[in-house]
């Protein structure tokens, strides 16, 4: 018997024995199987023909070859599931993704890990909507204003179906009406003129009734509304989540996010918008004649850590189910304003979107709101990943001081506020309150009320910007009796201003104005302050500017792929929303009462992504045979440079890391001249080249591979120029008439040689060229930025070029689970001759058993809050020290879900961690969901560091017993007979095999070693080696949602 057969047999025996332990806690997982889904299947299974559609064509689900192959995949699913008899699949996928989701015990996960049909198993992690989740209980007062539409007219988007995967849809919004009145204004009046015909023939979806949603809510505009909650319901059934009363088990939106994104992308034109009943003027979606299909995947539940705010999450399994159904339904475009992995495309949602792209669907996704940090999400090169920037409309209001000075800021004040006394929030703090947080106007929504009603009553309060959510500040003022709020910027790096409806008179002013207001108050005992009514105007500040919250690159998973791809408006976007409903009103709506339509201003990359989805619909309408890659290329190569922001270094808004190829220019995108197309097979070749474990090798056999730098993207990103790198690109002429294009290019410190440098192309003709990027004067390990442009004299086709010269390219991490073994790995070499190294390890973790209490909800939301809480010895925190001796190569601390006392209790324990240096500065943060936390520093300065742990949400509600593992690996640490053997020689632009070996490790431990590679006297790379001999479970890596959009 061969070993592989033996392990299968062992797995079956183990699986059978696990049945006796069925009472163990089950958690949601995504199990991916080792065969291509139908949208990506190119043949290879005996008896089943290829099913992937031809380029530019959409997948025909009803074709017999597709149906046959789907049947084959179902059989494979059954065989795998039969080996774990206690497991019932929640979702099964075979169209855009091959696998299933299920609630699994630890033992079942370990059994499936060993099943040869299983490609990989990942935790089914909830994802979040990428905007500020505005609490529904906030009452929003009247305001007046306008948001100019940024979309097309007339027939824009005709018969294009936009699928919105989100929090559902509020069907009463006239943006979704299919009739217009005598004035051409959209209406649901059945006596009005029907202006949308039946759904296009390609549409195969449906309208799914449920709580507060009937078949009548769909029409010829809102042609589909469905909901996907099987995974969510499974975790609820396990007691892991408690649903929040505000939601509806139906396609009906709770929270407004899905309505906002849907109406932004494809809402009707000429819709009379209002906020809380007050007219805000006409609004339109980007593609107002498109049809909308809503796919609700996000659900609201009780947050045990903060009872005041419901949380809202979208589980991977439900998301993939929606993507699969949308493709089957025949959508042309998908919008996904939901968080995603910042490090990997090896994720079920990301791979399902590859399937959707292969099926001919253009997908727009949000880059994330974790900026200006390097945290861009949605890394798949098939996706169009969108950052957020400002637009040039500005809702302005003035702060008028008693001395006559006036300062303009952002406001939605519906009426002026007469001269009133005012106070700085810092001076209005309760006795003993944390003055920093009081100055920020922390209130009940932040879990702690710091303002003194006696000092605030009847006054306007000046609150510092930062840390907590903007509307939490105004609520804090309102709940303590304040009559108005001035939100003052205090940092030049966070100096954008917002106009949000705060429910009380409010103006948000920049730092210079804030300083002036504070100086006036300090100098004038009888100071007063008035506010003007707001007026919409063209902003005096240049736009677009990248929003500080827009997540920045470079791509942390695939440094040779540019992300984000481009930017679009995502600050202060007015679009459809959900009405504010109390519990009784919600119940009436659930029972069939009509809810009023609502609108609101939101910001986030959630808001910019549907702009691109709408533009994708317009281009798909104009060019029905364009592939998703051609649409993306047209949007990128015609983008414009944003205006400078104040972010320093690699976070600067004008770098490709923030704006991608630039700010979208719709009119130019409609006539791009040349496009960089990518055939679906090239995505698969790319995935083969990065050895994605979930891509079937039989597929790679059929298609070969293409290196990441040669994927035909409209961007060139070279993270490892080992002397020089040559990339290949192909452009296709999509204009009219034969045209001759000439190349020009530049990037500081490098030369670019484009061959050939002129291309003469007939319409529809393609030509390839190479661009050789050679390092000349650029410093090693430093990014440089430039561009490569083709122009025929009229049209400019520009792609960003980013390059970094390196001496060596080595894997950052190696991994094994064996007590004795070796690992061989290939390094890229940018030098000739020999190299040396420094090595430390293997070293087992120092494991300490600790107990932590439950922290006060809302007090450790951010790394800064957690650090402060630890240093003050607050309840629910534990502070430990770890020493980094001289010559420390790596310092790491970690906790693990499986090593918490709440692991086998419903909900589990959520412990968070930050690492501080001796000056108490936070140097690393891990705020993941659950307790799989890790903080790590490479080459830390010698000294004593503090590991700060917080009991964010504990299953017991009171305390958790857990293990803290720490490592400080120095060059003096030797263990496990660890040995590194370097190659003896290297060539410029070549490769070499390197290897490590070890032996004699104990089982049940986690070991670590670190390697530094030294070329010509300087460190040119590092590799961490982890050897975990404890048969570890997959880790939860999801970061808890960051509320950044409006703070």
């Amino acid at each position, binding site marked *: 018997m061969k070993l592989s057969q033996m392990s299968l047999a062992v797995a079956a025996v183990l699986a059978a024995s696990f049945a006796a332990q069925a009472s163990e806690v089950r958690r949601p997982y995504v199990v991916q199987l080792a065969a291509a889904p139908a949208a990506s299947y190119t043949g290879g299974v005996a008896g089943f023909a290829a099913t992937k559609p031809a380029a530019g064509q959409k997948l025909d689900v009803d074709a017999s070859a597709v149906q046959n192959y789907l049947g084959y995949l179902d059989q494979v699913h059954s065989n795998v599931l039969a080996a774990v008899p206690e497991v019932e699949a929640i979702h099964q996928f075979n169209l855009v993704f091959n696998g299933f989701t299920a609630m699994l015990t630890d033992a079942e996960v370990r059994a499936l890990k060993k099943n040869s049909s299983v490609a990989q198993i990942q935790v089914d992690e909830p994802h979040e909507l990428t905007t500020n989740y505005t609490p529904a209980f906030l009452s929003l007062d009247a305001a007046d204003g306008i948001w100019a539409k940024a979309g097309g007219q007339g027939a824009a988007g005709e018969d294009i179906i936009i699928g919105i995967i989100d929090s559902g849809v509020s069907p009463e919004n006239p943006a979704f009406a299919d009739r217009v009145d005598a004035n051409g204004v959209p209406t649901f009046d059945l006596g009005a003129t029907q202006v949308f015909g039946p759904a296009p023939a390609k549409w195969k979806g449906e309208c799914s009734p449920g709580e507060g949603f009937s078949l009548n809510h769909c029409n010829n505009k809102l042609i589909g509304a469905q909901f996907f909650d099987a995974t969510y319901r499974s975790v609820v059934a396990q007691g892991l989540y408690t649903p929040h009363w505000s939601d509806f088990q139906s396609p009906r939106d709770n929270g407004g996010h899905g309505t906002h994104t849907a109406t932004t992308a494809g809402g009707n034109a000429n819709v009379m918008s209002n906020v809380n009943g007050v007219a805000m003027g006409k609004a339109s979606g980007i593609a107002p004649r498109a049809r909308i299909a809503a796919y609700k995947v996000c659900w609201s539940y009780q947050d045990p850590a903060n009872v005041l705010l419901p949380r809202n999450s979208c589980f991977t399994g439900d998301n993939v189910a929606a993507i699969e159904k949308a493709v089957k339904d025949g959508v042309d475009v998908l919008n996904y304003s939901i968080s995603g992995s910042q490090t990997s495309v090896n994720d079920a949602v990301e791979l399902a979107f590859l399937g959707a792209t292969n099926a001919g669907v253009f997908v727009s996704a949000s880059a994330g709101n974790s900026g200006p940090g390097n945290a861009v999400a949605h890394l798949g090169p098939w996706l169009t990943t969108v950052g957020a920037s400002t637009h040039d409309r500005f809702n302005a209001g003035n702060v008028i001081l008693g001395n006559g000075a006036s300062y303009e800021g952002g406001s939605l004040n519906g009426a002026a506020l007469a001269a009133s006394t005012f106070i700085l929030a810092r001076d209005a703090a309760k006795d003993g309150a944390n003055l920093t947080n009081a100055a920020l106007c922390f209130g009940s929504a932040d879990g702690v009320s710091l303002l003194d009603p006696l000092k605030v009553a009847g006054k306007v309060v000046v609150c510092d910007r930062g840390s907590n959510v903007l509307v939490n500040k105004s609520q804090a003022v309102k709940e303590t009796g304040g009559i108005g709020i001035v939100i003052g910027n205090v940092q030049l790096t966070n100096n954008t201003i917002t106009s949000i409806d705060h429910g009380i008179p409010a103006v948000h002013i920049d730092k210079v104005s804030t300083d002036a207001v504070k100086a006036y108050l300090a100098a004038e005992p009888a100071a007063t302050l008035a506010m003007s009514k707001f007026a919409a105007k063209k902003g005096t500040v240049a736009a677009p500017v990248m929003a500080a919250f827009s997540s920045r690159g470079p791509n942390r998973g695939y440094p040779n792929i540019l992300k984000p791809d481009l930017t679009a408006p995502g600050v202060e976007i007015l679009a459809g929303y959900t009405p504010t409903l109390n519990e009784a009103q919600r119940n009436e709506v659930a029972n069939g009462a009509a809810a009023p339509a609502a609108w609101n201003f939101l910001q986030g990359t959630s808001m910019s992504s549907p702009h691109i989805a709408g533009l994708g619909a317009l281009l798909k309408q104009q060019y029905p045979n364009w592939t998703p890659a051609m649409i993306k290329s047209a949007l990128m190569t015609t983008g414009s440079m944003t205006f400078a922001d104040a972010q320093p270094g690699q976070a600067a808004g004008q770098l490709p890391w923030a704006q991608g190829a630039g700010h979208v220019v719709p009119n130019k995108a409609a006539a791009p001249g040349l496009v960089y197309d990518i055939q679906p097979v090239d995505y698969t070749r790319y995935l083969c080249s990065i050895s994605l474990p979930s891509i079937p090798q039989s597929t790679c056999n059929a298609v070969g591979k293409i290196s990441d730098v040669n994927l035909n993207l409209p961007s060139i990103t070279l993270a490892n120029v080992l002397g020089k790198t040559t990339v290949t690109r192909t452009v296709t002429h999509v204009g009219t008439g034969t045209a001759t294009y000439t190349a020009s290019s530049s990037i500081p410190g490098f030369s670019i040689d484009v061959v050939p440098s002129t291309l003469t192309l007939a319409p529809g003709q393609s030509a390839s060229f190479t661009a050789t990027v050679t390092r000349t004067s650029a410093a090693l390990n430093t990014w440089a930025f430039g561009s490569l442009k083709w122009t025929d004299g009229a049209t400019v086709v520009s792609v960003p070029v980013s390059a970094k010269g390196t001496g060596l390219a080595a894997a950052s991490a190696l991994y094994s689970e064996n007590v004795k073994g070796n690992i061989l790995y290939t390094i890229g070499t940018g030098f000739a001759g020999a190299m040396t190294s420094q090595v430390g390890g293997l070293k087992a973790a120092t494991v300490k058993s600790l107990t932590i209490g439950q922290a006060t909800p809302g007090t450790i939301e951010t790394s800064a809050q957690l650090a402060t809480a630890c240093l003050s010895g607050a309840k629910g925190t534990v502070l430990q020290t770890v020493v980094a001796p001289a010559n420390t190569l790596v310092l790491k601390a970690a906790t693990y879900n499986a090593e918490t006392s709440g692991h086998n209790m419903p909900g589990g324990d959520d412990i968070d961690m930050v690492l501080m240096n001796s000056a108490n500065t936070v140097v690393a943060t891990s705020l993941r969901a659950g307790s799989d936390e890790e903080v790590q520093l490479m080459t830390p300065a010698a000294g004593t560091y503090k590991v700060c742990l917080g009991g964010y949400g504990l299953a017991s509600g009171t305390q958790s017993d857990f293990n803290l593992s720490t490592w400080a690996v120095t060059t003096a640490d030797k263990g496990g007979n660890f040995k590194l053997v370097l190659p003896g020689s290297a060539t410029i632009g070549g490769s070499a*095999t390197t290897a490590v070996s070890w032996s004699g490790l104990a089982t049940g431990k986690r070991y670590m070693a670190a390697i530094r590679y030294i070329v010509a006297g300087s460190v040119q790379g590092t590799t961490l080696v982890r050897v975990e001999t404890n048969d570890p479970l997959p880790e939860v890596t999801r970061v808890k949602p960051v509320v950044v959009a409006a703070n």
Partner: protein
Amino acid sequence: MTIKTTQNSRPSRRKLPFVKTLATLATAAVLSMSQAHATIVDIDFEDSAFSDVSLFVNGDTVEYKNVLFKTESLDDGLSGALIDGSDPFTFFNLGFPGNNISAYYAAVNNGWFSIQHKIAGAGIRLTGLDFSFIAPLPGFLNFTVGQLVVAGQKADGSFNFAARDFAGQDAQGNWQFDTWNSISSDLGGGKFTNISVLACLYTDTGACVFVDNNQAQFAVDNLAVDVAAPATVGLFALSLAGLFAANRRRQQAK
């Protein structure tokens, strides 16, 4: 087919064994040994003598059942590794063999290996082995990459060569072990005092050339080595060892 050798310009580099004629062992060559029964040693790399070394550099020698297995290289860096084919973690980003879940030997970078009878100068025959290519990166190459070359050095210092194409890749993209059982006859049937095993790579013009860029990497398993020796081999060995030592002293004295 042609086998070319690269001309190495760096004088400090070691040369391939048949490019530079090794120190003469002519005395040993004329010794006539009485024929004995074929005694086959199967070097299957399962013995801990190999896994204890794990990573091999130039000169590392493992003695296994009368055979000296010696790693050789153009440089002093990593040149070989003992692979556990059942270990899913052992290859991080190389294109590696897929149809061998036992232990085997990988010659990497600019490395190769040689085998000799542990009695210096005694003749051996390599009758068969399993072999596969190892690529620097995963992925499919839609051409024949090169050949495994066996160079047998006769007692008179001259060489006989045999070569065979590497097998391709399977449907999963893994390189394939192939079995070569006619090595002895391909080499002319005689015995050799030293047998070197190395790889050449095809050029665009179809020549198979030896390279020094770390890319001619390969794996071997199940070396069948005929170590049959005359009954009086012990006496011969003593005299051979003495001759060899004297020869080395002469060389060092130069």
